[in-house]
């Protein structure tokens, strides 16, 4: 389970103090926020950056011949460089801002897929995928006459590596899978799959939504062709995502949407497109959120990803141990390598009831199929309860959660 055995050096109380939202009561109980895989909370510096932008710097970027526009443009492009360094991309032009992971994947499926997928080609995804990494591929496969194939998983929720040899063939043009599973937490052997895909000339898209705030990501070391993630799952603002793509692939990929920003010259006869990344950023971008996102990246960098991962592993190991001792609990997803996601069901109690009871006790969890219905089908279940941890969570909160869960289960045993 432990992804790294290093000990963290974080002062968790000091970190918690930076998150205003955590200091409140819900239903008369101190809030315990364990829905971090859905979205995690924002430190004050991110919120302050949003306010500062609107109070001092608001201007449209890349065009204005005035001081505010220059300041806003500089701050906006600074974030692009921060993101580039954060995932070790080769150059900032390989970083495209989108609305989120879903849009990043849709961009690739739609633009890259429409040009490069042909009848008889195959796209490979895994059983672990979020609907966002299933549906866009289904749509483009249907349109282009390509076939969608699925990599199976074992009972622990790990990709069956041996199945890859049979599934990745000369027909495979794209392999799209997540770095870490949102429902189970499984960390996939990304490098291994990418190498296999490249061996047959296929491209690879990695859905990094669940990995970006937990794991160190180096897109060059991984040799990923595309890497997609969301700001709001890494202490940043909502409505903003990133698509990384290798320069040569992005240059060959047609634009996604038409509009301002993405053009070089327009006449009614013909339009020439802007260079990357602007070719993929039609319209006024989400300037305020991009600027505030920089603070989220700085927040992670200052804590250190290794520290964060080590601490979150401690939380996960502790919670897994405690919950395993409760009678009737079945863990869903027991991969050896996991991010801090704990998915489970309790015999005889519907996950919706568990979620409502935990909420009444101040514990926020996610219940349901987590937008991974095919994965739930694999386990023959309708859904799970999912507790997911971030760096500001504590062992004491896990203890309170375990007590709340035990007391909830006792209500159903009467």
């Amino acid at each position: 389970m432990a992804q790294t055995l290093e000990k963290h050096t974080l002062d968790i109380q000091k970190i918690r103090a930076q998150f205003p939202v955590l200091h409140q009561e819900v239903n008369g109980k101190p809030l315990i926020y364990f829905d971090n895989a859905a979205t995690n909370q924002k430190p004050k510096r991110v919120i302050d950056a949003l306010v500062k932008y609107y109070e001092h710097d608001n201007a449209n970027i890349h065009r204005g011949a005035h001081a505010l526009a220059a300041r806003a443009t500089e701050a906006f492009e600074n974030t692009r460089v921060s993101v580039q360094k954060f995932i070790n991309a080769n150059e900032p032009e390989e970083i495209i801002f989108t609305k989120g992971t879903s849009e990043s994947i849709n961009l690739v499926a739609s633009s890259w897929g429409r040009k490069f997928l042909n009848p008889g080609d195959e796209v490979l995804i895994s059983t672990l995928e979020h609907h966002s990494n299933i549906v866009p591929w289904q749509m483009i496969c249907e349109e282009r006459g390509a076939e969608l194939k699925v990599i199976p998983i074992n009972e622990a929720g790990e990709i069956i590596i041996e199945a890859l040899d049979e599934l990745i063939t000369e027909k495979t043009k794209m392999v799209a899978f997540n770095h870490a599973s949102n429902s189970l937490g499984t960390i996939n052997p990304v490098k291994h799959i990418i190498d296999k895909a490249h061996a047959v000339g296929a491209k690879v898209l990695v859905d990094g939504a669940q990995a970006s705030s937990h794991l160190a990501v180096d897109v060059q070391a991984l040799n990923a062709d595309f890497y997609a993630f969301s700001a709001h799952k890494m202490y940043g603002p909502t409505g903003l995502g990133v698509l990384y793509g290798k320069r040569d692939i992005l240059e060959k990929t047609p634009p996604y949407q038409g509009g301002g920003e993405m053009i070089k010259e327009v006449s009614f006869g013909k339009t020439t497109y802007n260079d990357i990344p602007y070719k993929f950023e039609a319209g006024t971008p989400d300037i305020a959120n991009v600027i505030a996102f920089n603070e989220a990246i700085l927040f992670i960098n200052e804590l250190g990803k290794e520290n964060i991962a080590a601490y979150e592993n401690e939380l996960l190991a502790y919670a897994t141990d405690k919950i395993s001792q409760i009678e009737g609990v079945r863990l869903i997803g027991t991969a050896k390598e996991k991010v801090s996601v704990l998915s489970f069901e309790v015999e005889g109690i519907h996950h919706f009831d568990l979620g409502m009871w935990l909420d009444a006790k101040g514990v926020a969890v996610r219940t349901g199929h987590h937008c991974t219905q095919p994965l739930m089908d694999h386990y023959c279940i309708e859904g799970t309860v999912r507790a997911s941890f971030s760096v500001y969570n504590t062992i004491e909160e896990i203890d309170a959660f375990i007590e709340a869960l035990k007391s909830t289960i006792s209500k159903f045993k009467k």
Partner: protein
Amino acid sequence: MSETINDIQNEIIEEFSMLDSDMEMTIEYIMELGQQLPEMAEALKNEDNIVKGCQSKVWLNAEAKDGKIYLEADSNTAITKGLVSILVRILSGRTPQEIVDADLYFVDKIGLNRFIGTQRSNGLGAMMKQIKIYGLAYSAKAE
């Protein structure tokens, strides 16, 4: 049935007011109400009677007898079953017109919005809509 829909709604509001807005007590009470719901025949828990919610399943069967609509319902989650039982208590045995005209203000008054809130969380909102549709259908038939 001499009590009107609003009489029963007022009774329910009164019952819930004793719970003092305590969420745990409220859920516990809702679950108790669910246990009092008359059992629905297994045969009626079929695909046709499913009211789709995202996380919890609700089955609803409506039958007309002597100009009134009688409801039977169940759910696969304890809390939703309790919520369903409240609706059955208020609306079963009413005329189609009464159902069509019913203003279900109890939902706001007892803070049930958070249970219905998003259509995705349970089948209650969908069930309210479905009962209204039955009411409309039967009242149209009666005309």
